[in-house]
């Protein structure tokens, strides 16, 4: 008999990637998503198509969906037999999403790109069966037009690997269970700095150039050079800072650059660039990365351009779009201090104050080249 797996979030990772990593012969899939249109479509069609890029072609999987709900229509008491619920709702939404599981013991597996979301969820559900997972994959939240014409919920993903913190039970599929320490050191650290950092920089360059997909940004020589430069800076820093084999880091970096260039993935710039303030958190993929470089004597010239790219990101639909209001109103010193949480006079603060004007002009020129 199949056991039940819940997915909180039917976006890129939840809908596009996780069904490839979990055995549909052993599990039945139930989705919970805040978008009622997706829920309605999943229930009407009883499933959807996900396409995996492998060796320059697509593999197709029809994912059968047992049921789909919004958080409001989902009654957790009917699903306490679930072996796990995979979360992929975005770090900011974990607290609210975890409230759905209050009073149950259902194990939660968080594919949330932020390890401390585990503590956030534990505090809400008041049990310890909450685990971190690192999907080493890029997954789009959409698909090329011809696939969408066949199935509006079609989605494309890479052939990735799902690393899950040890302790989970009853899961069948193509996933690797490793200790939390190993997960954070060997998988999360490279993912944060060799994937998340250059990936979002690529997207910010793409947004400035007005392109739709990440691979289109990488087709521009100057943007590509900037992303590769940021990757080199991160590689130098990681080799100095972390006890991770250097060949592994170099392989990881090459793999990521190839991913960003993948023309079959259709990874939207708007998805990767969204919520720039989250990406500008003090210890995160941009500010934290640049500070790590400076601490280690690596000059983060390209990372600095990535930071400015994030500051220039404009999307009226983005929840962080008020970043432009703040930039227009606040001088760089105040912005650095209050919004970026940099200490006045620290090296990154001084570098940004000194260079933001020139970098802004350079990035605007880059955008102008492509229009």
């Amino acid at each position, binding site marked *: 008999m199949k056991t039940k797996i819940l997915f909180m979030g039917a976006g890129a990772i939840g809908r596009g990637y996780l069904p490839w990593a979990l055995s549909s012969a052993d599990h039945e899939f139930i989705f919970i998503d805040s978008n009622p249109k997706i829920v309605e479509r999943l229930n009407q069609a009883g499933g959807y198509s996900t396409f995996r890029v492998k060796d320059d072609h697509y593999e197709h999987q029809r994912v059968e969906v047992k049921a789909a709900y919004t958080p409001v229509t989902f009654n957790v008491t009917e699903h306490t037999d679930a072996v796990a619920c995979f979360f992929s709702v975005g770090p900011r939404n974990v607290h609210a999403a975890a409230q759905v599981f209050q009073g149950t013991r259902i194990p939660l597996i968080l594919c949330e790109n932020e390890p401390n979301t585990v503590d956030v969820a534990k505090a809400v559900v008041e049990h310890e069966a909450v685990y971190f997972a690192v999907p080493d994959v890029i997954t789009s939240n959409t698909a090329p037009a011809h696939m969408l014409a066949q199935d509006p919920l079609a989605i494309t993903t890479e052939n990735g690997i799902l690393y899950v913190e040890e302790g989970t039970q009853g899961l069948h599929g193509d996933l690797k269970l490793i200790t939390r320490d190993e997960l954070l050191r060997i998988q999360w650290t490279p993912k944060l700095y060799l994937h998340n950092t250059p990936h979002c920089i690529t997207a910010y360059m793409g947004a400035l150039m007005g392109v739709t997909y990440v691979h289109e940004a990488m087709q521009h020589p100057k943007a590509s050079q900037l992303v590769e430069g940021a990757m080199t800076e991160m590689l130098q820093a990681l080799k100095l800072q972390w006890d991770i084999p250097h060949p592994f880091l170099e392989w990881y970096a090459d793999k990521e650059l190839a991913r960003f260039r993948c023309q079959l993935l259709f990874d939207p710039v708007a998805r990767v660039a969204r919520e720039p*303030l989250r990406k500008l958190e003090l210890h995160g993929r941009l500010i934290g990365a640049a500070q790590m470089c400076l601490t280690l004597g690596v000059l983060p010239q390209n990372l600095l351009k990535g930071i400015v790219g994030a500051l220039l990101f404009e999307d009226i639909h983005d929840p962080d779009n*008020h970043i432009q*209001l*703040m930039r227009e*109103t*606040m001088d760089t010193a*105040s912005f650095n201090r*209050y*919004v970026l*949480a940099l200490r006045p006079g620290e090296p990154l603060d001084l570098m940004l104050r000194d260079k933001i004007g020139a970098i802004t002009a350079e990035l605007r020129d880059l955008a102008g080249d492509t229009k």
Partner: protein
Amino acid sequence: MNAPDHTQLIKIALDAVLAGAKLADGVSQAQVVGTKGNLRDVVTQTDLEISTLIEKRLAGTGLPVISEEQKQVQQTTPEQFWVVDPIDGSVNFAHGIPAFTISAGLVEAGQFALGVVCAPRLDELYFTLNSERALLNGRPFTHGHRALEDALVAASFSARPESAQFDLFGRINQSTRGCLRTGSASLNICWAATGKLQAAYGFRAKLWDVAGALAIARAAGCELALRYTPGALELDYCVGSREVVAHLIQQAHACALWGQA
């Protein structure tokens, strides 16, 4: 010329408050230049300078400004006006304690519509984008309502508190995790809005002390119990989690504070 909209107004207020914060931040030794009738109500040279600076910047909006240091009571209450406190927590400021703020609030049709509160020595900048969105250091936040048994509360005392205010302080201190007195009403309210505290209250508070912070608490989704008559320069407030605010009002009734006209 069209009247500025809320986005334009908050940008001007943000610019003005940050300019004031920069001025306060540059002062290493505050100089007390007077008191207002009791030892706890001091005025520093910096209060006066910030007041002038912020008023000048807000003048660009064309709206009247009421400031702690420049009280111009109008004959009629305007529909929209700014309320400025150059330094809320002047005693703390004068003693080198970081719990003080620079703030501006927009009162509109008797409502606390917009606010900016900056605590420079704590690196905290609170402001409203509009009446439904409160930000701390640029990040949106909402108040997570908590139960009374989880509540840490902060009180502000008026310049000349009656004994009932001390009675209430004791009652709240005993019936919650504790009652703080930080010396800055606006900071109390902002901390209640973010959920560091579960409630903040004050009786016969000065409008300038709390106008900006109340707008932030409102936008963050706090329960606001106010006794404010438009046009008045004083008000009573209990702000924070629903259950905790209800408890504060009940206790204030028992101390004959909330029942008073």
